[in-house]
């Protein structure tokens, strides 16, 4: 048994084979994306394309996978290091780029599934538009702030997009690790559902 098979021994073997052929792009490696990337790598997703342009700050550490020693490093490089330390067989490619409406089209053929994990509402809308234009399945999040829990969370389907969150909380309610990670887990689970149904 190779190491990947050993890691994935508690998952369905037929699904593990399917996961190996899947490719997922994650836009943003903050509170949502850093956890989604790690969860999907651990689950055995074959190919991950990770996008961010930011560096790690102290204020990230309450909800992102990074450590104090990594403050000042690029999120892309640090996220790849965390994933490779956890599951060395993962095929991870990092893109240190700020995605805009002008350049996002260049990255819409990389992967079969796209994950929106940005902070700003306008960036979430930009990724929705790009996925709609290119016919790509999208998993997104909206409303991950504050302390409202499971009772507030919803799933919404819009075209090929699935959106998770409470859909209304604003950042001035605070960003707390448990709430953000809960939404990240819903996004990662949404990706697994899409791969399972492919």
């Amino acid at each position, binding site marked *: 048994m190779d190491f990947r098979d050993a890691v994935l021994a508690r998952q369905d073997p037929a699904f593990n084979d399917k996961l190996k052929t899947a490719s997922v792009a994650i836009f943003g490696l903050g509170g949502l994306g850093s956890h989604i990337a790690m969860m999907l790598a651990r689950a055995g997703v074959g190919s991950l394309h990770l996008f961010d342009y930011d560096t790690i700050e102290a204020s990230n550490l309450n909800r992102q996978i990074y450590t104090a020693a990594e403050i000042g490093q690029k999120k892309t490089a640090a996220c790849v290091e965390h994933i490779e330390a956890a599951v060395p067989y993962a095929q991870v490619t990092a893109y240190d780029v700020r995605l805009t409406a002008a350049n996002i089209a260049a990255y819409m053929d990389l992967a079969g599934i796209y994950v929106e994990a940005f902070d*700003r509402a306008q960036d979430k809308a930009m990724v929705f538009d790009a996925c709609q234009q290119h016919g790509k399945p999208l998993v997104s999040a909206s409303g991950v702030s504050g302390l409202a829990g499971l009772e507030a969370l919803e799933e919404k389907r819009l075209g090929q997009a699935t959106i998770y969150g409470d859909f209304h909380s604003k950042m001035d309610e605070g960003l707390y690790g448990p709430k953000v990670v809960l939404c990240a887990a819903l996004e990662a689970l949404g990706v697994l559902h899409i791969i399972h149904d492919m």
Partner: protein
Amino acid sequence: MITINDTPIDYPQPKSLQDILLAQAFDPALVVAEVNASLVKREDYETFMVPDGATIEVFTFVGGG
């Protein structure tokens, strides 16, 4: 009469989706809009004329992540 997010609204003359969104205080840059259960692309908001009796569903993205 049209309906936006389950709320009926008087609708005296044909308007673009963009005009309706702005009149209802939605930011067209931050929403996803369905008219009669079909998604309308953001680039078409200004030219998409909403028919009388339409049901519009507007989803608004909020920040945080």
